């Protein structure tokens, strides 16, 4: 499955929409302080950023629709599927770290990733398991950071 993405148009629509929503949310998401400390409003910097984002999103839409200046990117599902799957697996990795801890999560996730990448030799799986234990103790003993242990400890 292949389809072409007009990146200027879609960037303009998505980023413009995002900035507009955030601008509308501003009064609810950034409260004005109850007393005046003399400092500028906490809304000013995010407000400026969002307005500039909105302006340049409109510029992108004009570039695409009026000036016909467009950068087209071909989205090839066959090529992008591995990247999307890998990102999905990394999200699963985070969920597993929170749930079962760093070492078991690494063992499970990287076994899946390696199997997906076509690795069949057992040594690589043992190597990765050993590496996860090594990194866990490196952070604990050398950097004094205890990585998440989840429900097991």
């Amino acid at each position, binding site marked *: 499955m292949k389809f072409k*993405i007009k*990146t*200027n148009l879609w*960037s303009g629509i*998505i*980023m413009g929409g995002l900035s507009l929503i*955030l601008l509308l*949310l501003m009064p609810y*998401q*950034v*409260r*004005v*302080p109850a007393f005046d*400390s*003399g*400092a*500028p409003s*906490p809304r*000013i*910097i*995010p407000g400026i*950023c*969002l307005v*500039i*984002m909105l302006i*340049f999103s409109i*510029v*992108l839409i004009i*570039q695409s629709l009026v000036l016909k200046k467009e*950068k087209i*990117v071909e*989205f090839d599902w066959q090529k*992008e599927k*591995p*990247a999307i799957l*890998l*990102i999905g697996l*990394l*999200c699963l990795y*985070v969920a597993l*770290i*929170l749930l079962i801890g760093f070492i078991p999560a*690494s063992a499970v996730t*990287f076994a899946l*990733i390696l199997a*997906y*990448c*076509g*690795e069949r030799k057992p040594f*690589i799986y043992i190597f*990765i398991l050993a*590496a*996860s234990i090594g*990194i*866990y103790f490196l952070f604990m003993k*050398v*950097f*004094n*950071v205890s990585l*998440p242990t989840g429900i097991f400890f």
Partner: protein
Amino acid sequence: MGDLQMILQATGQVFTPTNMLMILVGLVIGMIVGCIPGLSVMLGIILMLPITYTIEDPATAIILLLAVYVGGMYGGSISAITLNTPGTNSAIATTFDGYPLARKGKVKKALDTSLFSSVFGGLFSAVLLLVCASFITKLVANFTSVEYFSMGILGISLIAGVSGNSLPKSIISGMLGLFMACIGMDAVTGVTRFSLGTSTLKYGIDLLPACIALIALTQVVQKLRDFKLSGGKLDDANKIDREGLTRTERKGIIPAVLRSSAVASILGAMPGVGGGVAQFLCYSEARRTSKHPENFGKGSLEGIAAAESSNNAVVGSAMIPLLTLGIPGDGVTALLLGAFVLHGITPGPTMFTKQGVMAYTIILGCLIANILLFPIGLGMTRTVAKIVQVRYTYLAPLIIMFCFAGSFAATGNTKELVICAAILIFSYLLTILDIDNTPLMLGMILESIMEKNFVTASMAYDRDYTIFFRRPISLVILGLTILLLVSLMKMNKKIEALNQANIEAIEAEHEKLDQAENVDSMEMGA
């Protein structure tokens, strides 16, 4: 304290066993990361960032990161020569002559030329940094928060102007970065901004997990995808022979090395230019002034020397605007600025007055890293080159584990892992939309500095926001922003066309070489 006194004091501080060890470790890691195609110097610096948290002296931490930068710039040439695949973008021009020379069986000669030129270029710019830094800071000593805020605008505009193909997209990316850094509690008023009612966003998005997701994890995912699509095949690397660079050959390349180092040092000091641009300009210049321009593209030592001395010369000179003005010149220096911020150092003129010894310790550390690159390069290149042949499935899990462990270590809170994953998804969306994420990262890094100066200036001038246009120096900086933006964009377009012409010509030359070699081998077989 005078500059000389500070330099003397810094000399004593830089030659500690810890600093020397950090430089050696940094150089080796930089060479390894730099030589693996698809991974960048930025990834090496990001991987080292969590480790620097445990280093007490911020100067030592920055020296370690600088050593990774120096090593990575040289490391990029190893795969450029042995595989015809540049390890980093800054080593593209090295493939032009490095690979043809390697095909002739002279891999060691090509690598020695690269090492010698890299060390020369790096030293040249590090000395320039040492000489210029104090001078520039004296020029900008009268800057107030108004000018610093304008400098922030200059920095972010220049990066947005030169990265990516579309200015509106890059500006959107930069603004997104500034906005994302605003999320969480405002330091001055204590008001929570855009937390969306979640505890994950209440304390904001930490810089380190964001950089890890934007740069390191994005790169690893792309590289793993390519690995999967290629079926795990590895390119054949040329074996390293024993015939190195002779004294006469070394003498012969000195003019090219000297010229390239000087040109690249000037270019590197201009924010928004960087090593990628410098190498092509220096390569063209070396060919133009060479006595044997016909050898370029066929294994010319001068060609390798020009490309490699230029990309390493950029390291020191890119530090000039970073250390003296607080403006990063490219993605790597933006990341280094992030490292400064994370370690509580604010680069700029005040750094030389308030933390002068530390500033000079960092500069001298950069100088020593360039000197030590020579013995490390001579001793380790053969070993590091073998790493290119290690299957990526061994490296990727290690990098990913280190990335997530490093993200968690930033604050010790599991929310960093969630933020990291969320930014990774967002970064992929940006890639699909062809939006470069370097301005986003710079925006995140610069926000704290910009907002602090904006608040200070606003409070000092009773919220009179026209002050940024009324103070002459600030007005000049803002004017300069527009001027530089327009001229740099024009210059980059011209250079891009020149690069394209160079690449096409060299590819044609390489094809001819391959065909000639095939004919030879067929004749031998017959």
